[in-house]
């Protein structure tokens, strides 16, 4: 079953709604080990994205995702802006010209997204960042699809892996981003970016 561009739009909308719903929670997580703005930043960005979506809904999936990325880049600020912006721009790059995606295309989308985050932020798994959520999620997704699972099943497995990755950031000592200034004191708190990335995978599982 192919994923069409309307579903991609629904995914973005669902993610925007999830961010809004978890705005205060994300900010609270960021207050503990960062600067208490991750929820507000992401929400500001996705509200702008929602405003932009209608103007590109009839473009190809690549164009839609790139627009999301560019909008985030210019509205989120902080570390989240370039990271999520690059995530979506690279995902769009991978889907350039497509109006439908095969399961393998969806895998490619997430692989490109993760790669974008890594190139931009130079974080490795274990650094207590969104990479800790996205890496296991992308691996699980690829493994399941390659193993012949249907996309909705594969995305569910990705979501489970993402959740584990997110929770796995709790004991970690941050080595990237603002939380790293805390040194040892950053352990014991869940990373806000890892959390918003979990929501991204979760809403994908619900819409794609």
């Amino acid at each position: 079953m192919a994923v069409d561009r309307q579903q991609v739009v629904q995914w973005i909308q669902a993610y925007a709604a999830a961010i809004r719903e978890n705005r205060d929670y994300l900010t609270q997580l960021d207050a503990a080990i960062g600067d208490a703005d991750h929820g507000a930043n992401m929400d500001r960005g996705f509200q702008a994205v929602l405003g932009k979506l209608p103007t590109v809904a009839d473009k190809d999936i690549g164009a839609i995702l790139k627009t999301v990325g560019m909008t985030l880049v210019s509205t989120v600020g902080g570390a989240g802006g370039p990271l999520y912006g690059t995530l979506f721009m690279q995902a769009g790059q991978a889907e350039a010209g497509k109006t439908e995606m095969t399961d393998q295309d969806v895998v490619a989308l997430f692989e490109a997204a993760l790669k974008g985050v890594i190139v931009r932020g130079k974080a490795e798994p274990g650094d207590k960042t969104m990479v800790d959520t996205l890496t296991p999620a992308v691996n699980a997704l690829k493994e399941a699809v390659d193993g012949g699972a249907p996309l909705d099943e594969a995305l569910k497995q990705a979501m489970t892996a993402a959740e584990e990755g997110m929770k796995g950031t709790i004991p970690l000592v941050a080595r990237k981003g603002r939380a790293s200034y805390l040194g040892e004191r950053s352990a014991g708190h869940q990373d806000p970016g890892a959390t918003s990335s979990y929501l991204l995978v979760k809403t994908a599982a619900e819409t794609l």
Partner: protein
Amino acid sequence: MQNKEVHLKKLINNPEMVVREELEGVALAHGDLVKVNYDPNFVYRADAPTQGKVAVISGGGSGHEPMHGGFVGYSMLDAACPGAVFTSPTPDQMYEAAKKVDGGAGVLYIVKNYTGDVMNFEMAADLLKAEDIPVESVLVDDDVAVQNSTWTAGRRGVGTTVLMEKIVGGAAEAGYSLEKLAELARKVNANGRSMGMALTSCTVPHVGKPTFELGEDEMEIGIGIHGEPGRTRMKLQSADQIVEMLVEPIVADLPFKGGDNVLAFVNSMGGTPLVELYIVYRKMAEILKGKGINITRNLVGPYITSLEMAGASITLLKLDDEMTKFWDAPVQTPGLRWGR
């Protein structure tokens, strides 16, 4: 706005409009020196571009005024890109600012070493490079409160930024090439060290409550300019003891040595008045004198602030003739001015 309940001890209207309204005020007050572009937001020299001169651009979260917008003008910055309060600006700001002030000799970005700032400036630089506009980015990471290491985000950029903007701005005005300018900027960073402390927290307008909690009898040594935690939280001490706790790690870090000439910069975090800064200066001068370090230039006042946070920071910059010359050069900005 009239109906919104006001509950912060701040002269603001709407927490979401703080940066916008501040920029409007800056434009109204200093139209002879600077202009303001909105969406994307940046402050730029009224006479920009200066043909043949490297454009010097800085930026960062708002809430540190006069840095950076107050340092736009003759012999300092060509443009400054203010983000939301304590949030780094976005690449479109730095990109559009560069396009506006580029005088054909390239663009130097001065970037404080925070993940967000670094990545946003990097994306802007990528956009310029794609258009074959020469660009160099220089990081400031002078805060000795944070332990440096290559596998973390590294040290934060603080007080040396102000000094770099002045010195590099002066050299750009004098005709330095982009390459020489970047080299000078890196020299400033390599020779500058800072550390700050907080007596109180501050409140980001749109957050509405203090960034961190600090007891009535407590202070934070090694605070960051966004209220990031420092080295230690401890009971209040005398000014002289606090100054020792700031100066000794700074001196030990570079290290500054007897015979060195330094620019000594005593900065208010915003809420601490001038009278206290001079009490800090007094002890700092005494300690440095004891070590044979000569203060040949200084700066005292609120130049890199954290909203209304009470506290102070000290920056020492080891000077050579080149840095001294461009520090002394006439400057005319809303926030720093001499010689014209």
